[in-house]
């Protein structure tokens, strides 16, 4: 026995370990693959051994080999064995290997569920940590579903290390199992407040990533993130949050306005470049989303541009690069501010770093104006001359053309210049953009009639110098394409040629046959056009000599083309040869054919709209899927099969599919053909067979390889004689090399003289007109018929995560828990007649089984899985049914095993909630807005009510209408009984006085309005008097911010009652033991108010508090000191802020569904009630008191009975049933999860209702 052990150890010692493997590979460099295959064999034998240590060693080696590109998925099962080892050392090896080679479709993964669960729940922190890390790499949909609950449990682990990892893993779980998102989200949200910064950061990370993909669902979290942003110092987290805000602002411009200030502060203060950069990026995003309405809008842009300039000027290439990147974002919306830094961008073009040069080029594209286009292009062209590497040069060339041609040549004023630029570009060696230049040339020649003659002249020159362009370097480039354009232009507009015969000669001459086929074809065809033109003019002039000369020239040269290998060339050439011989024959008879010949080529060339082709309506009776000819026979198909598979990889299936579809008979086909012909005849857009239309350019098939290389070594300079030099235009337009400053002065002077080329853009006249019609379109079609498409691919997992998170959870939305899932798993195995698998048993079990069995099992489980998947998609009831069918052994019906689709929505509740959450956000957005300095400065008072800003804007308006209403009401009431009148009057006086104090509708409540409000009860803060003296009156209202932060927001409003301005207001509010204020300066109890109060003015401030215990009422004592102008000493008022328990309640998540669920769930153990036998208030008034004063929400209101709901900041539920009987008998029954809270709340409500009495 001992000996065997020794032997085992000895063998182990001589096993290669990882180090030996690596060393071996290094020592066998020449025979590496052989060595490795030898090692693989060894590993395979090692894996067959019982000893787990040996296996772990083998797996470790496999992991290394995987990195070198060897597939190790065959060892999947062994990897799992190693993963299941109780030893951390081996486990870690196993998980590492799994994370390297497993993926979600790995089949062995389904064996791991229980093992991973065990590891997750291991008492050893690093076991769970390793499992979490591994799971993050290979989690599959099934694993996500089965382990979601375990991951959730880890969220509450005492170890931050595990919490952190669990939080991150949740993201992967959501992606694979979107149903988990809603039930898990509240917990995840809690983690934003985790005491450990790492966990907090991880939570931010996950939520940011979720929000980035579906921003609209996370808008309601904006206040929380805002808080984090202004309080956190962790740069990593800040960056994430700021990036997230960048994604949120486009959805909510008001958020952007709020962000500007803290962001600019950060920009000013931070020293971390990464943070600075992200701040700038988000500010840019904000500025893009709010195009107007910001007073310091320009200042922010200037700040950004300035900071970016610093980045770009930095010696660090990374900062330079990022600076340019961000600059290009500003450019889109604020081109003017970027254009000021043109010098900098141009300077970056000289940078040695290609990435930076390319970025600078991108910027230039947007910086072009009519004024600068020439200079920029000139600069770019000089760069091009200097640039090394064709790739960058091509990029430059492309940019030049893009710059010039953007928006229908928007910035080009002088097209002669542009044509010259294009011609100049032809000299670029080895470019791949010949086709681009060619299409530009044709575009200009066709659309800019004014420069057509000039263009034609240039093209003739190009043709004449074709040998220079198609020089030795042309083989690798596509520059020959420009000859295509040149030939076509010269042919099409032959009447504009100065010397058609010379051009024809230059076309015929020389190296044409060495050009690509499609160019030759164009050559040949345009020779005919030229010929026709020459003949026509010669006939007019009776120049028979010329006719003969030209005819002979063609007849002599064309045979070369007739024997061309290119079908198109050959066909055209032989056709033309016959035309020419026919013409010759006619001339011999003395007939004039010139005019007839020219007819062959006439026809107007109009631009076609870009979408015209798509918009051509499908004629009736045309079946595009029908066979035009008989389908090829079966045998042919087979013959071509091999070939077809190679050429049309995917065509095969559709091909067969189509065949089955429809086979028209010969008769039908004939009919169809006739119909089509008739259609064509009446369709003006169809190229008719009768008229020869001008050939359209075809650029898409540039085959560089096909250009036969015949290298000619010509010592000719690349300058083509007679071509216009670009310098000419520079002089004409006043752009000169160097001396920029002087130049500017000149410009100014010339402006006064009224020269065309300088001064503002508007003054620059276009020298030529471009035909910019949208082009021809089929009748009835419109260009704008476009629809938006979600750019995310269909199977993007983030689509599934587009889930409303504000909606309250329904009780059936829970994570699948272990218990019923195990039952499920068990059944699965039983149904396959397999024994139950326990993780520890796996190795043994599997070893006894032979491979065949294993395979069988795999297949079976696969089948079951497939069926399961099907099941998952169906609603739960169906699912149970199907499961019943699958599994006859199943005895008990397991309810809600399959999580109900998350988007199951109770319509009413959803609508209500949307309203509520948006209210919340609106509140937050509006309140902060009113805090911003500029709004305080402008002297107008802002509303403290949580009404939407639109209503606050319309304040004055609504007030007016209100007073009108009141007057009306008064008149009506005057006719009523005198005693009632008295009361009403009192109330009105009260209302009016409050109006004077600008309480606004919050308090100015009149009975009629209450009735209106009943329909949609909105929780609004309820102002209470805080303190008052002869100079100042202070009121306050509280609102629970039901975010993660569990804060109470207190709005304190200061109303001046003095005739003199009041300044230096200071609040002193020391924290009590249970109530703490969130301060900017945690050391100081002072709150300095940065403004002063003018007589009659009112201003407000907001303070946030956190309470440790929300079940008991709190009080806070403090004082206010202020100085009245003119008096030397300050005055003091003592304050007492009261926080009854109802302060901590909010009713915003109330919905009927959750309410009934709550009541039936039995969670609400605490009960309490009170009655007011003689309540003088009407039922609506009572309700109003409860909703406004008590921060509860009405869930349901029937006659004189209402149910109300409120939730405390700490998640306690409070449900009230209010009954009001005819005899002013009020009963309020309460139920809650928290007894103390309930009794305190009811006490408070009772006293307030009594007080009102």
């Amino acid at each position, binding site marked *: 026995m001992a*000996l065997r052990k*020794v032997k085992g*150890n*000895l063998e*182990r*010692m*001589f096993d*290669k*370990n*990882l*180090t030996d493997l690596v*060393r071996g590979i290094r020592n066998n460099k020449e025979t590496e693959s052989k060595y490795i295959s030898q090692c693989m064999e*060894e590993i395979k034998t090692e894996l067959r051994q019982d000893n787990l*240590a040996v296996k*772990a060693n083998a797996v*470790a*080696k496999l*992991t*290394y080999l995987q*990195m070198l*590109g060897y597939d190790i998925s065959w060892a999947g099962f062994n990897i799992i064995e190693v993963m299941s080892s109780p030893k*951390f*050392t081996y486990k870690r*090896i196993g998980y*590492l290997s799994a994370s390297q080679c497993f*993926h*979600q479709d790995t089949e062995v993964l389904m064996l791991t569920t229980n093992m991973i669960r065990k590891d997750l729940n291991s008492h*050893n922190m*690093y076991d769970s940590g390793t499992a*979490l*890390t591994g*799971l*993050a*790499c290979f989690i599959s949909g099934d694993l996500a579903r089965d382990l979601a609950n375990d991951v959730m449990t880890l969220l509450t682990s005492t170890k931050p290390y595990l919490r*952190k*990892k669990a939080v*991150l893993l949740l*993201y992967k779980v959501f992606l*694979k199992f979107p149903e988990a998102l809603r039930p898990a989200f509240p917990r995840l949200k809690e983690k934003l407040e985790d005491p450990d910064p*790492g966990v907090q950061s*991880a939570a931010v*990370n*996950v939520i940011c*990533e979720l929000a*980035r993909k579906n921003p609209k669902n996370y808008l309601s979290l904006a206040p929380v993130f805002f808080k984090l942003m202004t309080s956190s110092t962790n740069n*990593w987290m800040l960056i994430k949050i700021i990036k997230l805000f960048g994604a949120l602002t486009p959805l909510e411009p008001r958020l952007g306005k709020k962000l500007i200030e803290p962001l600019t502060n950060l920009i000013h203060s931070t020293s971390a470049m*990464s943070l600075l*950069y992200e701040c700038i990026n988000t500010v840019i995003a904000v500025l893009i989303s709010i195009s107007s309405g910001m007073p310091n809008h320009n200042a922010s842009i200037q700040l950004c541009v300035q900071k970016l300039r610093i980045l770009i000027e930095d010696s660090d*290439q*990374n900062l330079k*690069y*990022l600076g340019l990147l961000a600059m290009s974002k500003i450019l889109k919306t604020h081109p003017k501010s970027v254009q000021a830094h043109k010098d900098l961008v141009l300077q970056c073009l000289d940078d*040695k*770093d*290609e*990435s*930076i040069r390319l970025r600078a080029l991108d910027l230039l594209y947007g910086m072009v104006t009519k004024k600068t286009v020439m200079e920029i292009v000139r600069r770019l062209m000089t760069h091009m001359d200097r640039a090394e590497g064709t790739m960058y040069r091509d990029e430059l060339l492309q940019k030049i053309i893009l710059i010039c041609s953007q928006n229908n040549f928007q910035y080009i004023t002088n097209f002669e210049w542009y044509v010259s630029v294009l011609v100049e570009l032809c000299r670029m060696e080895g470019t791949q953009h010949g086709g681009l230049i060619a299409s530009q040339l044709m575009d200009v020649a066709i659309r800019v009639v004014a420069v057509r003659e000039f263009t034609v002249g240039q093209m003739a020159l190009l043709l004449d110098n074709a040998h220079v362009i198609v020089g030795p370097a042309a083989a690798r480039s596509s520059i020959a394409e420009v000859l295509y354009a040149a030939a076509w232009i010269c042919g099409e507009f032959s009447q504009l040629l100065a010397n058609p015969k010379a051009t024809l000669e230059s076309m015929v001459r020389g190296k044409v046959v060495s050009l690509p086929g499609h160019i030759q074809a164009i050559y040949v065809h345009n020779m005919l056009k030229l010929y026709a033109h020459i003949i026509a003019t010669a006939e007019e002039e009776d120049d028979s000599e010329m006719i003969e000369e030209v005819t002979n020239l063609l007849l002599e040269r064309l045979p070369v083309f007739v024997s061309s290998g290119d079908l198109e060339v050959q066909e055209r050439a032989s056709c033309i040869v016959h035309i020419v011989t026919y013409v010759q024959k006619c001339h011999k008879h003395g007939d004039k054919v010139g005019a007839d010949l020219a007819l062959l080529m006439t026809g107007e060339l109009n631009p076609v709209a870009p979408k015209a082709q798509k918009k051509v309506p499908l004629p009736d009776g045309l079946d595009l899927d029908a066979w035009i000819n008989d389908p090829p026979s079966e045998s042919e198909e087979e013959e071509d099969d091999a070939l077809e598979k190679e050429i049309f990889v995917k065509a095969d299936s559709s091909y067969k599919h189509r065949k089955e579809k429809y086979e028209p008979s010969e008769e039908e086909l004939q009919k169809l053909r006739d119909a089509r012909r008739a259609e064509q005849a009446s369709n003006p857009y169809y190229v008719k067979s009768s008229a020869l239309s001008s050939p359209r350019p075809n650029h898409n098939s540039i085959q560089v390889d096909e250009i036969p290389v015949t290298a000619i070594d010509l010592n000719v300079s690349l300058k083509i004689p007679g071509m216009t030099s670009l310098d000419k235009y520079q002089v004409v337009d006043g752009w000169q090399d160097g001396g920029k400053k002087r130049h500017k002065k000149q410009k100014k002077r010339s402006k006064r003289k009224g020269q065309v080329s300088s001064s503002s853009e508007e003054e620059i006249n276009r020298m030529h007109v471009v035909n910019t019609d949208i082009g021809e379109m089929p009748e009835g079609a419109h260009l704008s018929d476009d629809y938006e498409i979600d750019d995310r691919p269909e*199977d*993007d*997992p983030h689509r599934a995560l587009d889930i409303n998170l504000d909606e309250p959870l329904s009780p059936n939305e829970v994570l699948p828990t272990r218990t019923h899932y195990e039952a499920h798993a068990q059944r699965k195995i039983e149904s396959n007649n397999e024994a139950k698998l326990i993780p520890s048993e796996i190795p043994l079990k599997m070893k006894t089984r032979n491979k065949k069995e294993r395979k069988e099992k795999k297949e079976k489980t696969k089948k079951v899985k497939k069926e399961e998947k099907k099941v998952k998609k169906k609603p739960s009831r169906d699912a149970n049914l199907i499961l019943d069918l699958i599994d006859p052994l199943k005895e008990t019906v397991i309810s809600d095993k399959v999580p109900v689709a998350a988007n199951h929505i109770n319509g009413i509740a959803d609508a209500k909630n949307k309203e509520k959450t948006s209210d919340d956000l609106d509140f937050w957005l509006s309140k902060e807005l009113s805090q911003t300095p500029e709004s305080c400065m402008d002297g107008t008072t802002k509303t403290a009510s949580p009404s939407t800003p639109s209503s606050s804007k319309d304040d004055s308006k609504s007030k007016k209408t209100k007073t009108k209403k009141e007057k009306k009401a008064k008149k009506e009431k005057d006719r009523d009984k005198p005693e009632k009148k008295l009361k009403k009057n009192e109330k009105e006086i009260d209302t009016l006085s409050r109006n004077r104090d600008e309480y606004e509708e919050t308090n100015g409540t009149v009975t009629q309005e209450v009735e209106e409000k009943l329909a949609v009860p909105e929780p609004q803060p309820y102002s209470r008097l805080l303190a008052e003296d002869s100079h100042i009156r202070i009121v306050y209202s509280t609102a629970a911010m039901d975010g993660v932060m569990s804060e109470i927001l207190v709005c304190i409003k200061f109303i001046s009652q003095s005739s003199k301005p009041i300044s230096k207001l200071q609040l002193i509010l020391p924290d009590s033991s249970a109530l703490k204020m969130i301060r900017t300066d945690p050391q100081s109890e002072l709150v300095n108010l940065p403004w002063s109060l003018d007589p009659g003015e009112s201003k407000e401030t907001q303070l946030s508090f956190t309470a440790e215990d929300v079940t008991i009422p709190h009080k806070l004592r403090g004082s206010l000191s202020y100085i009245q102008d003119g008096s030397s000493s300050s005055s003091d008022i003592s304050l007492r802020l009261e926080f009854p328990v109802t302060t901590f309640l909010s009713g915003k998540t109330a919905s009927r569904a959750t309410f009934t669920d709550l009541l039936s769930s039995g969670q609400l153990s605490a009960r309490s009630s009170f009655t007011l036998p003689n309540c003088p208030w009407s039922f609506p008034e009572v309700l109003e008191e409860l909703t406004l004063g008590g921060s509860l929400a009405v869930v349901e209101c029937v006659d004189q009975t209402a149910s109300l709901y409120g939730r405390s900041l700490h998640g306690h539920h409070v449900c009230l049933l209010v009954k009001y009987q005819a005899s002013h008998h009020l009963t309020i029954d309460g139920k809650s999860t928290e007894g103390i809270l309930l009794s305190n709340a009811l006490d408070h409500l009772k006293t307030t209702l009594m007080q009102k009495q």
Partner: protein
Amino acid sequence: MMCRRQLSECQHLRCSSLDTPPTMIKAILVFNNHGKPRLTKFYQYFNEEMQQQIIKETFQLVSKRDDNVCNFLEGGSLIGGADYKLIYRHYATLYFVFCVDSSESELGILDLIQVFVETLDKCFENVCELDLIFHVDKVHYILNELVMGGMVLETNMTEIITRIEDQNKLEKQEGPYNSASTSSLKAGLAAAPARAVSAVKNMNLPQQIKDIKLPDLPAAIKDLKF
């Protein structure tokens, strides 16, 4: 023909890459100046062949850049696409390349690479390429403390090092394991002189020695001369 095959492979790749969720960090590659991979971590599934192609392509993109140019590269064709960037740093003989999407801050990732390398430096005491060659598993464990499933887990170096040291301690407690670390071999069979053993191993003898039948064992041991 060749082109077509590559194309179809790319299509295959695209399909497979859609199956796995997109992560913020898509891949982390470490290779040397000759393009030899020293650490590869893909947070999105690619088969082995694709992985090698990606490494190759990335190496070609990165290696032709000077040291004094910026550290960002816009997308290779194989990995990523428009939204992805390559962010890399070059240390002596090694390139550290992170392939990330737009949710990550470029400068942040550069910092992260720095943290990674500094952590390696601390853990290996003056890290050099050889450390990465022979202890790729350890490098993986270190990386796992920084990045998890393509998301940044921890950036605080002391925290990372504490975690790694804890785990190493745990490993040591569990006793000898002579595969991953050379040092722990000392605790192996009667503390056999590690060098001698590995010298024997390097002679490519193990197969023969293993073949020795059990009765011969004492002789074999004698030959080893303890």
